[in-house]
């Protein structure tokens, strides 16, 4: 007799192990059509993006009046190497866009706030609903009001390694006090680890996960903040 609920559950899980091997084999051998389609889609998409880039360069050049001829007859050739370098430097000089300056901890919050929220996925953060914790996707998760939790997936081994390295470096998180904001940020590595570069100022506490040498209230230094923003903004 299986008296208590836990015992019944154990029994059910054990009996689930008795599923016919034919069905298991059937499930294992289900061809991943979607994955194959995705690869094909990816190829077509990549080709389309390359075409669009090439086209945009040509159209952009045509609009701005740049000529692709090897020599521009209206310009006199520079007389010396210094003149040539100066000319090249002048041509290449571009004013940096406003957002390209390295965001400090607080600027990062403002920059993230300025992004189009609709372009990000949202995740459930309530206790027991945090599916993202173990889904093997690395995500940066943030919230402004603790109602909606936005997420940006981090891809590329290099980026993920760099992200981990920042957390290894104690100097990457700067301590701060006295601010009352409701901005929080977490990095979920999809294997249960959740590290915190930007704590909620108002609570100053981590619900789960850990931070090496825990700082009650802190934000990432400029380099780290800049890196995080580049990951979020793509």
């Amino acid at each position, binding site marked *: 007799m299986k008296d208590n609920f836990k015992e019944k559950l154990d029994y059910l899980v054990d*009996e689930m*192990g008795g599923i016919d091997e034919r069905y*298991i084999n059937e*499930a294992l051998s289900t061809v*991943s059509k979607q*994955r194959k389609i995705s690869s094909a889609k990816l190829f077509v998409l990549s080709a389309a993006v390359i075409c669009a880039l090439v086209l945009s360069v040509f159209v952009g050049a045509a609009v701005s009046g740049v000529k692709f001829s090897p020599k521009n007859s209206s310009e006199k050739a520079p007389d010396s190497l210094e003149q040539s370098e100066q000319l090249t430097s002048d041509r290449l000089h571009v004013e940096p866009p406003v957002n390209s300056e390295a965001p400090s901890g607080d600027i990062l919050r403002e920059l993230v706030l300025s992004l189009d929220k609709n372009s990000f996925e949202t995740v459930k953060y309530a206790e027991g609903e945090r599916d993202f914790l173990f889904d093997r996707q690395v995500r940066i998760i943030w919230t402004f009001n603790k109602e909606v939790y936005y997420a940006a997936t981090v891809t590329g081994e290099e980026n993920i390694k760099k992200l981990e390295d920042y957390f290894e470096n104690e100097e990457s998180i700067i301590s701060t006090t006295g601010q009352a904001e409701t901005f929080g940020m977490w990095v979920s590595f999809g294997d249960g680890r959740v590290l915190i570069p930007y704590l909620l100022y108002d609570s100053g506490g981590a619900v789960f996960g850990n931070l090496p040498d825990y700082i009650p209230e802190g934000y990432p230094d400029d380099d780290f903040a800049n890196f995080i923003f580049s990951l979020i903004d793509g």
Partner: protein
Amino acid sequence: MRRKVLKKVMQDVEIVELYWQRDEAAIHESDAKYGRNLERTSYGILLSKPDAEECLQDTYLAAWNSMPTDRPEFLGAYLMKIIRNLSIDRYRALRSKKRYAGDTLIYEELSDCIPDSGGTVFEAMEKGELSKLINKFLEGLEKEKRTVFVRRYFCSESIKDISRSMGIGESKVKSMLMRMRQRLYEAIKEGE
């Protein structure tokens, strides 16, 4: 353990033959063909990569020791059963030592299928009886639904992985699973 396989993946029957010949290549070939799925299953139960890796090694050892005399028709399913059992044993050991924070996903979701205290049929069931009922239940499902069910509750795959590999939306996977749990609950309750 896992290595890049540049040659064609071997057929199950060829790999089993390697086991019978006591050729260690059997383990490499098993790993190349099924290692990823096996480790994912173990991880789905234990939620710990080191534990899942250990279970994977133990699985190959168990398969090495059981062949011969066993000659499985479906090697993947055979290995999957071994790793599932080992992972569940390890999960229970950790749970009893209070080293496990919460219920693993199969436990959480399958609890929906447990009839209330009035479910006398369930309570009176002996070992193997419920398996028969589950297999009968699976037999009555369409292939797609059956695959989703087995991947979730036998292979412990995440909904995201199932959704991606089968090309169906996550919400559809969730609703399919919910309906199947309800049907299984009814089937268990009625003791069909």
